[in-house]
């Protein structure tokens, strides 16, 4: 039963008939519940995510693309079997849009992006002072500290944040922005295909950065922490 006519489903993306190969990413607010509206109304107005005009239309076309929110992606490329979600063509329409969803950094002006390895090192230093701090009952530590520290440690694949930065910084000259560099460091990909599958925004500049990213991955493999 493939009743996928955008019926109260979270990705309100599909309104195409099963036969028509058109995936129109329209805000389907008639039948989506308020929760899913909230998820997408919160979004910044549609951004730049269509900027890579690689309108390659393969078997799946993403026509229309009147996406008024988040999923401004275009997908439309043949996808390969991976670890998850590979589905057939008709089932894969939401999969394509989800997979092609690009990273949208929404940071306040006075913020600096930290990778998991940098955050883990900083939080480790604070953890070191915790014993002294906890002696004074007046000093309160945010309750998210422990969980975030655990998350940073588990998400840290490398032995040194400084080395990671040295390896990845040069990618900025090859069309890779800060957010994408942060993603590469956080994911700890093993293959170049994994990088492009998980960070689809890099595909636009693949011809420029593929070689450099491959080199960076090789260098990162040398400093990977054993777990």
């Amino acid at each position, binding site marked *: 039963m493939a009743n996928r006519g955008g019926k109260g489903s979270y990705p309100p993306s599909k309104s195409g008939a099963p036969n028509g190969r058109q995936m129109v990413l329209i805000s389907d607010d008639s039948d989506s519940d308020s929760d899913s509206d909230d998820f997408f109304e919160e979004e910044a107005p549609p951004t730049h995510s269509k900027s890579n005009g690689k309108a390659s239309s393969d078997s799946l076309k993403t026509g229309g693309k009147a996406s008024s929110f988040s999923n401004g992606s275009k997908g439309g490329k043949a996808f390969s079997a991976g670890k998850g979600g590979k589905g057939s063509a008709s089932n894969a329409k*939401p999969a394509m849009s989800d997979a092609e969803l690009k990273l949208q950094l929404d940071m306040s002006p006075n*913020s600096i992006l*930290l990778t998991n390895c940098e955050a883990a090192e900083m939080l480790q230093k604070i953890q070191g002072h915790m014993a002294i701090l906890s002696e004074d009952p007046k000093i309160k530590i945010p309750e998210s500290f422990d969980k975030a520290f655990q998350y940073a440690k588990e998400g840290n694949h490398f032995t040194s944040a400084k080395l990671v930065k040295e390896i990845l910084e040069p990618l900025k000259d090859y069309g890779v922005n800060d957010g994408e560099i942060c993603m590469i460091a956080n994911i700890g990909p093993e293959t170049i295909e994994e990088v492009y599958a998980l960070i689809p925004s890099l595909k636009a500049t693949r011809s420029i950065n593929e070689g450099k990213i491959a080199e960076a991955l090789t260098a990162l493999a040398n400093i990977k922490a054993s777990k």
Partner: protein
Amino acid sequence: MVFLQAEMCWNVLISAGQLSPKGLLLRKSIIVRLLEDVTNRKASKEHGYYIAVNGLKEISDGKIRELTGGVLFPVTFTCITQRPMKGEIMVGSVEKILKHGVFLKSGPMENIFMSAKSMSDYKYMAGENPMFMKDYSKLEKYTIVRFKVMGFCWMEADRQFRLLATMAGDFLGPL
């Protein structure tokens, strides 16, 4: 969720009883009060979850509040925060399994929902230990999953985020 180091300027109110002519004690009071405020506020829509204050930049001149006698000090500090971003890849563990999807948790976030429709290859298996299964891969409680953030919203009442996740895509799914 990505980590950020955000510079913020908050007003810290020191009550009259905590004011001290000795500079260092006053400074300690301000810092303790700042830490308390950060802990109480937990999170904000703009910066995400407050994890730890890691630097104090400046304590500006205080302003006396006439009625109470307390003093308001503008304090500029840096704080490590964690905030979700749309389109980012995260890793979380399964907390609850329902027919329509699963709830995940990751770091300080405990409200991450992944719809069954984004796991179209997986079938729901009810029972005492419900799970989603596909061939030899299964999603049950405490399974570690890599997913992508499709969207999120800020719940002002609870002061936390709710995330919508998907596993539809290459290299996503149970680890």
